[in-house]
């Protein structure tokens, strides 16, 4: 009986209910999209912050050189043990790592700093580097200032001299970083190690670890336990900004969710108020036939609940699509749909629709006699 009444009511008032349904669906779509973004924005933002480059440095303890100009007596680290420790501790925590070995060599008559590194890794670690030339080619990457001074363009040949050894290299690309690398030549690590006569030795290792300040510090601790003879230092530049921005964006999106929820409730409320006016005759008849007010209101509330749940579900599906679109257009990457959003949104929308049904309370005041008389 209850179910049949509910079904008839839902079918009988299609026009009005469609308006309410559209309000609920659009509200649910926007809210589920925003919630999806709210959950995913931390990951998206931390990806953006990768352009800041490394956030951890492994350096030898006692990293002070006591003699001049790139001498072999500088305190160095063993490349194999560092990369083994990084691989062992950081399979899930480390986003990238690059070793460096610096020497001061000569190109022609000019002394230049040569940074031996794994070029691919170094570039992955520093997404903000702007390279000119064919960066994928083998050869070395020349800093902007070095290229200017030595008149080098991509494709040129250079000869690097170090004490009595020399190496010939092709310039693959010119680098603009706005930082120290602009005054260096980045060359393959093995070639530099050979040139310096320091096979298997590196001076520092730069890493980018995942997560916030605390996660980075925890990983640094883990790493220094694995490498007791070396020094692991976090570079704290980004974490504070990242945390603050994340908190602020979340707060803003969160307050917008609340505001939009309130507005959706208002929309449903208006539709329900109009519906209640139209339903006065139905209610009068029900009451005249002996329906208790509690039962009548229960039927209407159930009607609204069905509306909220159905609208919430449809809206959620649209919202997931909307979140994808926002993700693509704002972050250039899709946003992972989170399944916990479905129950949250459906529950929220049902609640909002029930609140919107408050005007149906007025039906309790309906006097059957007056209604049936046509007043």
């Amino acid at each position, binding site marked *: 009986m209850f179910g049949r009444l509910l079904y008839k009511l839902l079918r009988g008032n299609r026009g009005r209910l469609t308006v309410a349904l559209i309000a609920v669906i659009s509200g649910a779509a926007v809210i589920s999209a925003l919630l999806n973004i709210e959950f995913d924005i931390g990951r998206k933002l931390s990806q953006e912050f990768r352009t800041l480059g490394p956030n951890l440095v492994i350096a030898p303890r006692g990293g002070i050189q006591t003699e001049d100009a790139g001498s072999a007596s500088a305190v160095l680290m063993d490349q194999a043990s560092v990369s083994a420790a990084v691989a062992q501790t950081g399979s899930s925590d480390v986003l990238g790592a690059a070793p460096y070995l610096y020497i001061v060599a000569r190109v022609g008559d000019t002394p230049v700093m040569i940074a031996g590194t794994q070029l691919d890794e170094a570039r992955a670690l520093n997404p903000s580097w702007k390279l000119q030339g064919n960066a994928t080619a083998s050869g070395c990457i020349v800093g902007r200032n070095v290229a200017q001074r030595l008149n080098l363009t991509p494709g040129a040949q250079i000869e690097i001299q170090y004490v009595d050894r020399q190496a010939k290299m092709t310039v693959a690309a010119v680098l603009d970083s706005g*930082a120290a690398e602009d005054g260096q030549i980045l060359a393959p690590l093995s070639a530099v190690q050979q040139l310096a006569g320091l096979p298997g030795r590196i001076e520092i290792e730069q890493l980018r670890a995942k997560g916030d300040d605390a996660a980075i510090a925890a990983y640094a601790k883990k790493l220094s336990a694995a490498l007791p003879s070396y020094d692991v230092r976090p570079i704290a530049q980004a974490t504070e900004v990242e945390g603050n921005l994340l908190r*602020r964006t979340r707060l803003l999106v969160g307050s917008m969710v609340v505001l939009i929820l309130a507005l959706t409730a208002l929309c449903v409320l208006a539709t329900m108020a109009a519906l209640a006016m139209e339903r006065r005759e139905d209610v009068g008849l029900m009451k005249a036939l002996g329906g208790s007010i509690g039962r009548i209101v229960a039927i209407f509330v159930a009607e609204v609940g069905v509306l909220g749940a159905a609208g919430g579900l449809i809206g959620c599906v649209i919202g997931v699509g909307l979140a994808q679109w926002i993700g693509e257009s704002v972050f250039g990457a899709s946003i992972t749909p989170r399944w916990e959003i479905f129950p949250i949104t459906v529950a929220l929308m049902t609640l909002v629709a029930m609140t919107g049904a408050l005007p149906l309370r007025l039906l309790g005041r309906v006097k059957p006699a007056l209604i049936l008389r046509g007043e």
Partner: protein
Amino acid sequence: MFLRLVKESFVRNPRRKALTAAALVVGMAVATATLSVALEVGDRMAREFRSLGANLLVTPKADTLPLQIGGVDYRPVNEGAYLNVSDLGKLKMIFWRHNILGFAPFLDVPATITGKNEIHTTLIGTWYEHEVPVPDGTTFKTGVRSTHPWWKIQGRWFDDNAKECVVGATLAANYPGGIAPGQTIEIANRAADSTVAAQPISLTVTGIVSTGGAEDNAVLAPLSIAQNFSGHSGQFRELFVSALTKPADALAERDPKTLTPTEYDRWFCSPYISSISFQMEQALPGTEVRTIRRVADTEGRVLSRISTLLWLVTIAALIAAALAVAATSAATVLERRVEIGIMKAIGASNSLVSGIFLTEQLMLAIVGGLIGFVCGAALARVLGESVFGSPAPLKLVLLPIVLGIAAGVAIIGSLIPLRRAARLDPAPILKGE
């Protein structure tokens, strides 16, 4: 007659207006609050980014290549070019001077800590918080405090006018016996020659600094000490500048030389990082201003993404507000079908009926919009306070916009049911069908 009808409708039946008025107040409050926050967001977030530190680096144009390994500079001392500290005030005279939030000059001197254990290091001269005279007669307080806010100090920073220094964390840990705040170190210029005294100076250590960079192996001291120490009085080698910028767009990416005069003016008058660095190069001749890509790129990308996202959210909230107002307006008109029937039965034309209702809605919209604006301003304060820590300023420009939205949405919302009502036959309505 018309006015009396409208007046009567307001006075006789205030409860009927309540729902529309409430929707208007809530909707317009949300519109005001979201718009004032959205207008403010870019600027606030950009300021947040300045705790990333400097985004511009100024170097002498004709400098030699740096040869610095492990915090020790291998360049011959007298090689390379220097810049004058006395010119720095000019930076606060450029068009975008208020966007220059801070700068710090650096002068590196190869040095040796003397004593029972000799150790080679670099003495870096800079400012922590120094008052720079600006040509317009004011002073500007700046230093690494604003350009490198992420440097961690244990103890306290040096006083810019005292014989004090801070020591890099690695150097302090590796120095035999360690270096702790409160201690005094003797430091000598490693490349002493006829122009520079070899006599070591003694500095009081006030703190241990940890930067994650070359400074961890160096001693940082007030710039004036490093200048006297190296014989380069009044000079420095590098300047880090922290400037508030606008994310780069298509115009900022283009070469200023190819711009038309109008585009050039627009470029010059926008705080793009490229236009600010161009103006700095003009103010400090003989220099090259470079963008620190790491910082500037991150800032530009994240800022433009967050503000796009927030604008999208704002638009969603505005649409929701418009829908809510339109729906309530529609509902109130529908409720009064009987009234419309009577009016038509006694001879009112459709245009008169619409006129009365639209005037009513318009008055409601203005009153509701005004109250909504006031509530929205309060809401914006609360939002600004909780999100940015300081309230968003009230923008009166928004008042006409909000009132316009309110009027437009209320009228559009009531037009649809009014047009339907116009088609109605009065007889069945009066009969109660």
